């Protein structure tokens, strides 16, 4: 369960992180700025996938509405910008507070249900947010919201260039990885993992699992919201489309393909997904057909994901 950096798969992960840290220079050297954009987006989605894995992979809570927090985070940059408020601290705190509140309220209701009910209710709540933003004509609705400058922080934090934004994204990624790594090995993490395997048993050991899972849900939402703030800065065009429930399905796919319940898995999943999306759409405009078929085949015939495959390197 605990992978040290000594194992072969651990080395692969560290190697990947190293590559990611020097990527912008590599891209500049090979004159492919487009790749930097792709990777930036990939890492942002990767952080969102990591946050989903916290509740899904480790906690067994299958949320089909997680993308709502990505959108809320992005709009927490967009809406203040609409009113010429560019302060990054305001964007950040707004994102943290709204995501935490929305997660607290919807989580409190959703986590009383389980199984199919839980999946459906999370999907419905995220649709609610989607439609709310879709109907707010003032902030662009269907046409989206354009922002003209990125979040402003005091002098030493600069988000304007592609390079600097990338490193802030990379920084959040490292922080998230480290935080989740500690969290799942802590007492709190053991309760979450135990509740996934056998909720009844955990309760009979004296754990009020509802409270722990709700806390985990809120934490996961806030991390996703932070990724959303970066997304808002990255795209500078914010639309409700990024919050539709089909996006949540894609996020779940990334977590699964990367390997649930593993630390780095979702990151692999997100990067693979985006790479696949780019590659397949070069082949045909009907790439959704191939992607859907792959998805079906993966579930029917494949198990464990990339992480499980990498674990075989250890054997």
């Amino acid at each position, binding site marked *: 369960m605990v992978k040290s950096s000594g194992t072969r798969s651990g080395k692969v992960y560290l190697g990947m992180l190293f590559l990611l840290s020097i990527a912008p220079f590599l891209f500049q050297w090979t004159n492919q700025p487009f790749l930097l954009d792709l990777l930036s987006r990939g890492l942002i989605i990767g952080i969102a996938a990591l946050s989903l894995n916290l509740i899904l992979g480790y906690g067994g809570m299958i949320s089909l509405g997680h993308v709502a927090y990505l959108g809320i985070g992005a709009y927490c940059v967009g809406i203040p910008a609409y009113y010429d408020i560019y302060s990054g601290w305001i964007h950040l705190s707004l994102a943290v507070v709204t995501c935490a509140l929305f997660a607290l309220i919807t989580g409190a209701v959703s986590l009383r249900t389980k199984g199919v009910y839980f999946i459906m209710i999370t999907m419905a709540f995220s649709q609610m947010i989607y439609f709310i933003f879709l109907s707010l004509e003032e902030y662009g609705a269907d046409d989206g919201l354009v922002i003209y400058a990125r979040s402003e922080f005091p002098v030493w934090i600069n988000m304007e260039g592609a390079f600097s934004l990338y490193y802030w994204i990379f920084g959040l990624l490292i922080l998230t990885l480290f935080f989740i790594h500690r969290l799942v090995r*802590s*007492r*709190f993490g053991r309760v979450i993992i*135990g509740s996934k395997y056998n909720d009844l*048993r955990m*309760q*009979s*050991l*004296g754990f009020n699992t509802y409270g*722990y899972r709700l806390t985990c849900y809120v934490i996961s939402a806030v991390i996703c919201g932070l990724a959303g703030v970066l997304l808002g800065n990255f795209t500078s065009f914010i639309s409700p489309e990024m919050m539709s429930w089909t996006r949540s399905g894609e996020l779940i796919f990334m977590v699964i393909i990367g390997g649930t319940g593993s630390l780095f898995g979702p990151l692999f999943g997100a990067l693979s997904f985006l790479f696949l999306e780019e590659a397949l759409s070069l082949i045909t405009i009907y790439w959704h057909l191939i992607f859907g078929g792959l998805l079906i085949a993966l579930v029917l015939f494949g198990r464990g994901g990339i992480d499980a495959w990498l674990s075989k390197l250890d054997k």
Partner: protein
Amino acid sequence: MKQNMRADSVLFIRSLCKSFGGIKATDDVSLSVCRGGIHAVIGPNGAGKTTLIAQLSGQIRPDSGDIEFDGRSILRAGMAQRARAGLARSFQITSVFREMTILENAMLAVQGAQGHSYRFWAPVHQDQDLADIAMDHLMTVGLHHRSGRIVSSISHGEQRQLEVAMALAMQPKMLLLDEPMAGMGKEETFRMIEILSSVGAEKTILMVEHDMDAVFSLADQLSVMVNGRVIATDSVAKIRSNPEVQKSYLGGSCAKD
């Protein structure tokens, strides 16, 4: 019910009723479990024994009646609350965490007894104190030398032993054991009887069991349940010679000691 008996009892069940559709799984059950010692509940399949345990542990809500634990009614308390109040339960169908090691299972149980777990930073596997306490409990059931094994790779009997260890790790005032001997062979049963005998010397146990030899050698008090009702509660010897019990459960041939 005599008044001094009630004062001495850890668990006092009064007129408990539970029906599923038209079936009375628990039919006006009243029972008192005295402090210290082992109280066994026996009866044929479908008598309602597991339903009774489920109501005691808080998994199912009774339709009517009351349950008093340590002098206070726990009827409104949830499962987790009852566990923290000192009522530990083991399950008939083994419910240990198969993907974790024996030690990790036990540590989880100890963790549950140690106040809240809203600690997000310190890794559990480096917590030596937690591990030591867990090992103590594993030693009580004789599993300490296998602590590093993954549960899915150990024998059924050892998993049942782990169930008991986890219940003990909760530092309970009373243990509710649902067929601790279930599915065990002769040797494993013998070992479990030894374990329960030593545990029973210090803690109160209410045990549902089918294995008659185990029950007769362990129990201080016996209650017999048939069709949701308790038809007799008494010492082992008196139950064995009770004609009604013989008729409905033991069969005539067990009249001899």
